[in-house]
């Protein structure tokens, strides 16, 4: 049994040939639903994963939180099953059923053992097609979300990101938290929920991904049986939103009696379909997403001992998301940490990354690709998103090639273009008085 220790820098191209074997069956039903099926027979489990192309970005103005409320209420009662009955039925077989809203889309899924696949389809079809939105559940769930919003204010990270999103996105819908705010939630009516559902939850707005111990034939039949009579409707129009722009440095300091400062620094970023996505991924990996191989980790945690967690991230969504660097450091070293972050942002724009950094980043991204696909749950999510973003199913064989093609010059170019150490939003949550932030 042999193995390879990659001492040489440039020869570490890892094999991901087998990831290219991911070739789902894709078809569109007469009522417009896109269906993806991937057979995985190793374990007798099935994941039925619906992606509805509507999220908090489609919340009505002044009513942030509608999409999330709709998602939260799907399993709180249908035409034939009460909230409790739905819970009892899925729990009895040891499965799971739930829905979650994000900014660009909502996911609703059922996960069961193979033997309970019919029940999984029945329940998921029921909550997607016949949610009842009972008034008492609406009031209860709304009250619960309000409570969660209050509780989230105990998490300085959460407080920081909320403030950061408002500064970066300004009037863009990504400004609002997915679960809304206390103010907007109190304005939402049951009619808002029903209207959003009626407008957005259509079969032609859904990507249904089925992964697990089921054949394509079986899956096709189940889809026809349980979703075949769902009526197609006019797809809602999406207006083109101008991406947010930051034209000057903006600082927000939020006082909280803590021993650490939570720092978020960043600005608008890119969308998932930006052709520079792969070059940006490599650049960002070197900057702050590569764990201990990244510059931010190396400098701010490893060498200076200032932080336990630090990372940089491009939230590449349907519309351009944000770029941020996030860390926590004790109050006394707040300024030092911010300086460190800005220094790294500048450095990666001023000189090309080293051959070693480039090779190692690419090697990681290519080599670790199969790890993103190593469970039915992950496969379902990735497949759905590949379809949602229109990436094409050669994605699985092409990903490594797109990464491999990125050059030092590409990295420098995207660093200059998509990183801005002059025009950014900076949020600090902590003992501001003691931190004496001077940035």
């Amino acid at each position, binding site marked *: *049994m042999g*193995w390879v*220790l*990659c001492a040489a820098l440039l020869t*570490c191209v*890892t*094999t*991901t040939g*087998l990831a290219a074997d991911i070739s789902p069956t894709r078809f569109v039903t007469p009522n417009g639903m896109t269906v993806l099926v991937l057979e995985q027979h190793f*374990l*007798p489990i099935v994941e039925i994963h619906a992606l509805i192309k509507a999220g908090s970005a489609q919340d009505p103005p002044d009513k942030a939180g509608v999409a999330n409320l709709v998602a939260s209420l799907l*399993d709180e009662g249908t035409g034939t099953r009460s909230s*409790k009955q739905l*819970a*009892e039925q899925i*729990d*009895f*077989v*040891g499965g799971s059923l739930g829905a979650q809203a994000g900014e660009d889309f909502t996911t609703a899924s059922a996960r069961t053992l193979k033997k309970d696949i019919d029940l999984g389809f029945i329940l998921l079809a029921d909550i997607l097609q016949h949610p009842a939105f009972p008034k008492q559940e609406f009031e*209860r769930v709304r*009250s*619960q979300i309000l409570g*969660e919003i*209050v*509780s*989230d204010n*105990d998490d300085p*990270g959460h407080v920081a990101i909320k*403030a950061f999103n408002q500064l970066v996105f300004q009037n863009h819908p990504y400004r609002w938290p997915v679960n809304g705010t206390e103010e907007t939630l109190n304005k939402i009516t049951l009619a808002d929920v029903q209207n959003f559902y009626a407008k957005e939850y259509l079969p032609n707005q859904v990507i249904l991904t089925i992964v697990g111990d089921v054949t394509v034939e079986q899956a096709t039949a189940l889809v026809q049986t349980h979703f075949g009579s769902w009526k197609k409707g006019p797809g809602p129009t999406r207006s083109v939103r101008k991406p947010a722009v930051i034209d*000057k*440095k903006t*600082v*927000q300091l939020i*006082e909280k*009696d*803590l021993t*650490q400062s939570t720092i978020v620094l960043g600005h608008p970023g890119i969308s998932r379909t930006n052709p520079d996505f792969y070059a940006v991924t490599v650049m960002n990996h070197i900057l702050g997403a*590569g764990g*201990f*191989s990244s510059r931010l*980790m190396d400098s701010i945690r490893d*060498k200076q*001992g*200032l932080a*336990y*967690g630090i990372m940089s991230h491009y939230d590449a969504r349907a519309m351009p998301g944000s770029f941020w660097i996030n860390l*926590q*450091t*004790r109050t006394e070293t707040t300024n030092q940490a911010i300086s460190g972050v800005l220094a790294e942002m500048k450095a990666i724009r001023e000189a090309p990354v080293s051959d070693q950094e480039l090779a*190692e980043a690419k*090697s*990681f991204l290519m*080599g*670790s690709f*199969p*790890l993103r696909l*190593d469970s039915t*749950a992950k496969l379902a999510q990735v497949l759905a998103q590949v379809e949602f973003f229109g990436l094409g199913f050669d994605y699985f064989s092409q990903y490594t090639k797109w990464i491999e093609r990125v050059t030092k010059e590409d990295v420098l170019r995207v660093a200059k273009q998509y990183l801005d150490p002059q025009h950014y939003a900076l949020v600090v949550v902590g003992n*501001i*008085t003691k931190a004496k932030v001077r940035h």
Partner: protein
Amino acid sequence: MIRQSSKRYWFTRILGALLVFGPASLSMGAEPNEYQLSNGMKVLLIEVPKAPVATVQVWYRVGSRNEVMGRAGLSHMLEHMMFKGTAKYPKGSFSRIVRKNGGIDNAFTSQDFTAYFENVAADRVGLALELEADRMQGLLLDNGEFQTEREVVKEERRLRSEDDPQGALVEALFAQAFLSHPYHWPVIGWFADLDAMSLEDLQRHYDTFYSPNNATLIVVGDIKADALLPTIKHLFEPIPRGPSPKQALPQEPDQRGERRFILKREAQVPFVMMGFRVPNYSSEDSYALDILESILSHGKSSRLYQSLVYEQKNSLAVGAEYSLLQTDPGLFYFYSLVNPGAKVEAVEDALQREIVRLQNEPPSDLELQRAKNQVEASRVFEQDSNFRHAMLMGQAESVGAGWRRVDQFVERIRAVGAKDIQRVAKQYLTQDNRTVGILVPTPSKPPESNPTAVNEGKS
């Protein structure tokens, strides 16, 4: 971990101070191939060909339970230092090499064990094994590195406890429930203990506990056990056997009366926790306790959710957890994130009512069967991820249960009856056996300067 939904954007060095696992067990799918090397190291290899990936994990039987008062946090500190280099792979190279080879590496420390893992493509397993074998006894402890890394650990403590009201409450609860047993102190340690630590402490801890005879190697994924074993022997068998540290600890004395405490912190909502002293996996009662946990807390149809969240609406989130796979008897605990509009007393009463209900009336056949179905289904879902599969085996081995026990668990679960549930509820969930901790939010101090000053500077 108990924490609810709020997102945390930090790099997970440890997967929570308490690793509490579900009761999943395995009796299907790939059977582990078990071996014992001549130096005492146990090896478990599980072949899972479904994806060209594998997880390589080394579990050491050392955790915060192996520490002494005054040096709490030593095991976790040592875990951090394990990434700081050997003669062959100097500082900074370990994670870099793994990543360069497309792998992800990390580690975690609990009360009972410290575990290291690499998730890699199947053809890099040898590399991960080589790296782990090398640092098992080749770690170089450098004082400069230690000084810096100690600051990192302090930041971690600030993140998890100092600035986290719920984390602080959990810490205080364990301290109250365990007076003399090492479960008293947090895995991450206290600031004073961290400051008092020396390189000699770390070296002694490493020399005592990091030996092949105190470790279990687990590989789960696209491997062939008989082809991999020679490589493992070649890498690990030369490592000499180390000391056999005494693992038995004096028992925590019986608790003879309720303990209650208040923690006042700036917080938005109250939080209630109740811990009951219970036996671990080695007790005949562990099966009933596990089913009890399911009936109370697994899924939205469970007792606690239906009563406290759905009907009474006094909690935003509620649950019960039983630390089955622990080396020493741990806790069965309840927690509630209190709805801002509700009173803490109401939540305590509600929790107590649920306990009394289970003591006085047997659960329904439906609930009992549901709980058993959930346990059985979980064990299948667990195998969907090589990582989780290996974690479960590693934990079972490291706490002294053995991986076979996990297999047998489901068989024994099937035999649990309604009367058993009542019996264990009556025996263990008593007021005299409980420790209650309540987080009482205090109003924010009025700030000395503008609380949210937004400055738009010149570019």
